[in-house]
């Protein structure tokens, strides 16, 4: 079990970083994975092309919540361009756990939310995440 539910995953699940909402967000986006009921919202504050603040909120499994929490740490202070360039591989590397096809969407939901928000798209498909 250690491989999947590593300490760092559980820690982010139980003590999510940057959790909450930004009332004065420049970008807000929310999406869910109806299959498991995971739901994630991201609020971003952007200044001069840089993400100066970020919050996420939502409910779901340990993988989806830890992934969102870690992603907020990763993009805080990054430029919008840098954040847009994140790929599924970046997320999987960041989590550092082996994920089967059934759980990969849990891991990628936060990236899906982030990218749709950053590109201002109404919706983004799983296979368009990059």
């Amino acid at each position: 079990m250690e491989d999947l539910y590593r300490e760092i995953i559980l820690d982010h699940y139980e003590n999510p970083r940057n959790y909450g909402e930004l009332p004065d967000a420049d970008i807000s986006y929310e999406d869910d994975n109806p299959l498991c009921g995971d739901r994630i919202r991201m609020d971003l504050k952007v200044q001069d092309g840089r993400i100066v603040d970020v919050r996420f909120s939502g409910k779901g499994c340990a993988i989806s919540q830890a992934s969102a929490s870690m992603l907020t740490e990763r993009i805080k202070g990054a430029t919008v361009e840098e954040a847009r360039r994140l790929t599924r591989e970046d997320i999987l590397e960041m989590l550092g756990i082996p994920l089967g096809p059934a759980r990969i969407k849990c891991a990628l939901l936060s990236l899906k939310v982030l990218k749709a928000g950053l590109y201002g798209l109404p919706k983004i498909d799983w296979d368009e995440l990059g």
Partner: protein
Amino acid sequence: MKSVGLRTELNVERIRADFPILHQAIHGKPLVFLDSAASSQKPIPVIEAMNEYYRTTHANVHRGVYQLSEQATALYEEARRKIAAFIGAASPKEIIFTRNTTEAINLVAYAWARPFLREGDEILLTEMEHHSNLVPWFLVAQEKGLRIRYIPITDEGRLRLDLLDTLITERTRLVAVTMMSNVLGTINPLRPIIEKAHAVGAMVLIDGAQGVPHIPVNVQELGGDFLAFSGHKMCGPTGIGVLWGRRELLEAMPPFLGGGDMIRRVTLEGAEWNELPYKFEAGTPAIAEAIGLGVAVDYLSRIGLEAIHHHEQMLVTYAMERLSEFPGIRIVGPPPAERGGVVAFVMDRVHPHDIATILDREGICIRAGHHCAMPLHERLGLTATARASFYLYNTIEEVDRLIEGLEIVRKTFHRAG
């Protein structure tokens, strides 16, 4: 405080020998398969019958004048007769092969509700239905201006039968209800529903996807009008399901799909429908699968549905006893005496998907999610549950393995500090 006599009438060891798939390791642990409500495993006789059919007898049915085709047709029709006998149908003509429960319900929605119901007519469903007994009705209701109403459930997961008299009115044309909930496990009392529906001239469709594989059914004694079920949940193959309907109703209905086999005669001006059941079986059917389902029905009948049901109730009683002692676990649904072999639950601070993933690493297959019953989960105030379901091949030891697995889940998530 073990209130259960852990007795079974089944020779489970012998039954397990018939299911090759059960004898393997997953992630290095002996497989414990607790997801038969989603799809059951298949015994050797079913696998062999389909194999044998393809090796020796396959040809298209109902068309060839040569021996092979006649033999294939005979096997296909024999399967239909077996299934008719299995559910106590008055005639094999009332057995329509479909792909699954979903297609069977859609057949009724499109070939009965759509032509026969009028704007303002009401369809009564329940809060515990599977999406396949909801969405087909949404589609016709939208097109025809029908009103859909629901029999609510109690917090324990029972149907509010006390409300039937206000819910069933002269406007009610159809009541569509599941025999057994795939989440709560509740076995619904169908008789009072059928009686009240028939009293106002409404038809009753029974979703037998969870019921028919596990509980003895006799449609003539039960008295409903349509019954839908899937082969793959009752030891048969995927790709084959059944719609049973009362003959007069089926006779009066127009076809569902058009094509070969479902017509008696085609001219350029039109077509004359074939007789039952072929009117509803357009195109080349799932021949091997029908034959496989016939053998599955033989297999289940030989063991006995009553004994299977008792075995599952023994397992679910034991499982619920163990789960209710487990810290932080909450079971949804009624007490064991009112259910089949299904138990869904949630655990404090752990998402059902994480439970299922950790159990998978222990070789234990359970299902996590909304189990295609989102409105029910909404009613329960949950987005997802974890569900273990049992069949004739499951054992007490497997329930113990489940509990041990849940112990690992708890330790993983509820670490000190």
